[in-house]
């Protein structure tokens, strides 16, 4: 009740507390998890779920309306939208997840080192990160992809590049907060080595925040990938990407607006799902945002 006691901090890991932690997640987080899982399954089993071949063109079926043959209609080349949507999920998920995985590993390591070592290394590392972070990520991604060529690897690298500073920042901030905590002082007083303190004691403490960041940035990555594809810097046609499908649909917006709307909704759904998970995780780990007292 009074301020004289220090509020106990919430533990995050260990098996017993993992269950408690999962129990704290709200309904919308689970909706997000469900959507992502469903889309992952759809991407994996795309060949089984598809009704046509993704590349099959047919002049007869150009701009066909949704119906029994084409569940969601067909595009201007007569390709089945449902099928292309399923295959498109593969690229959105692959690019989004692997780009963020790369960014997470690289960024977290850079941030942790900068935060723990401090001094001039910190200033230089973070100044570079700040410049990249401040740069519009879409423009940066666009320039990188344009210069390097729009291949799967290059798109992943470009998006990972734009996301890395965010992870570096949050890892650094986390390390700096933890570094001054008494338990780290205690570790140093007991003569533990720097890497041991950094990876055994500090890293588990900052990991939850990094995971929140990862989830929110996966949303951004999917959105960036779709935007690049929409601009025309996605994987080359005829590869079915959601952003590319919106672009094709947009060219025919006056005659068949569902071509643009259906893949748009797919993008929205996936981005929303990652955001729901990120928000839910953040609420669960941040005791300040919960109802205290």
């Amino acid at each position, binding site marked *: 009740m009074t301020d004289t006691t220090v509020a106990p901090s919430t533990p995050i890991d260990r098996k017993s507390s993992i269950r408690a932690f999962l129990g704290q997640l709200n309904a919308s987080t689970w909706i997000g998890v469900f959507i992502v899982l469903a889309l992952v399954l759809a991407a994996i089993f795309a060949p089984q779920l598809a009704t046509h071949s993704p590349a099959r063109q047919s002049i007869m079926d150009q701009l066909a309306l949704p119906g029994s043959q084409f569940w969601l209609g067909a595009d201007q080349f007569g390709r089945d939208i449902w099928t292309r949507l399923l295959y498109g999920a593969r690229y959105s998920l692959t690019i989004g997840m692997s780009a963020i995985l790369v960014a997470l590993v690289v960024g977290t390591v850079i941030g942790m080192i900068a935060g723990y070592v401090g001094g001039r290394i910190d200033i230089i590392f973070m100044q570079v990160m700040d410049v990249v972070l*401040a740069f*519009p990520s879409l423009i940066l991604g666009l*320039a990188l992809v344009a210069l390097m060529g729009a291949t799967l690897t290059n798109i992943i690298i470009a998006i990972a590049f734009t996301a890395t500073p965010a992870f570096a920042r949050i890892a650094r901030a986390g390390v700096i907060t933890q570094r001054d905590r008494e338990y780290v002082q205690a570790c140093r007083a007991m003569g533990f080595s720097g890497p041991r303190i950094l990876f055994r004691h500090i890293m588990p403490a900052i990991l939850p925040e990094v995971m929140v960041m990862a989830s929110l940035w996966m949303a951004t990555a999917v959105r960036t990938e779709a*935007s690049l594809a929409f601009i025309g810097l996605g994987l080359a046609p005829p590869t079915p990407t959601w952003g590319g499908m919106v672009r094709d649909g*947009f060219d025919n917006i006056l005659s068949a*607006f569902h071509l643009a709307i259906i893949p*748009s909704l797919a993008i*929205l759904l996936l981005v929303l799902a990652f955001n729901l998970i990120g928000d839910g995780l953040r609420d669960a780990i941040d005791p300040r*945002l919960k109802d205290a007292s």
Partner: protein
Amino acid sequence: MLPFLIKRLGFAALTLFCVLTLVFLIVRILPGDPALVILGDQASPASIAALHKRLGLDQPVLVQYGQFLLQAVQGNLGNSMVTGRPVSEEILAVLPYTMELTIAALILGVLLGVPAGVWAAVKRNRLPDYVLRFISLLGLSLPAFVAAIILLMVFAIQLRWFPVISAGTGETIADRLRQMALPTIALALIMMTYITRVTRSAMLEVLSQDFVRTARAKGASPATVVWKHALGNCLIPITTVVGLYLGILIGNSVLTEIVFSRPGLGKLILTALTQRDYTLLQGMIVVYTLMVVVVNLLTDLTYGILDPRVQYK
């Protein structure tokens, strides 16, 4: 104050220098001869050599680099490989369109986002909060081009309230505003969701702090507590986000400009990309960096106005 300004300007210059160097390197490292890009594959060796001489590509790399830097400092970003016009001229011609769009979207986003965030925080875990949180999450998840397409379809194609193509030119101010309306709203919606979210979480944190309790203990009305004491302390995180997301706004303007066929930096960069106009592209990257640097500088200076604890060292 002055030392701070000098230091920040120094950092800005350093940033610009790094970006310029990086741009120079990337363009030089790129596979393919720019001359071939300009003249086509069937160009004769003589004409290629002539063009090399004209572009300065026959000089040693270091000399090229020096000239590039020197010219960039003087505002000369070279000539477009395609049109032959100075890059700075090409950019300046469309810059006002992008500027008016982003600034209008920024103002609209702040005007909508801050009150929405405050309201959500005050009505925490009640209906308005849930609704606003859902809307802002939806807005956060909506790619700018999707937002733009939906607005275009509903208000321009179906309802015909606004023109489909936003040429940016117009006879009267009313015309111009009508053309700007949809792209601005599309961008502002996204800006608003970011601002709503950060305002809400900053407000929640501030509202639980001791000095808010002090203000209430003084007998200040709830409105005074929220809008004067609490919001005053939220302006720093809000400014940070505005500064940070101005970049996203500039990035997203590319997408809206494409959807609404509106002139601007977005359309120009797309042209540069499709035509492989590297000088134009490198010039644009420099301009974007310049904008980012200026925004950061302004954000930093704003902190000092908003928070007396910030000392310019």
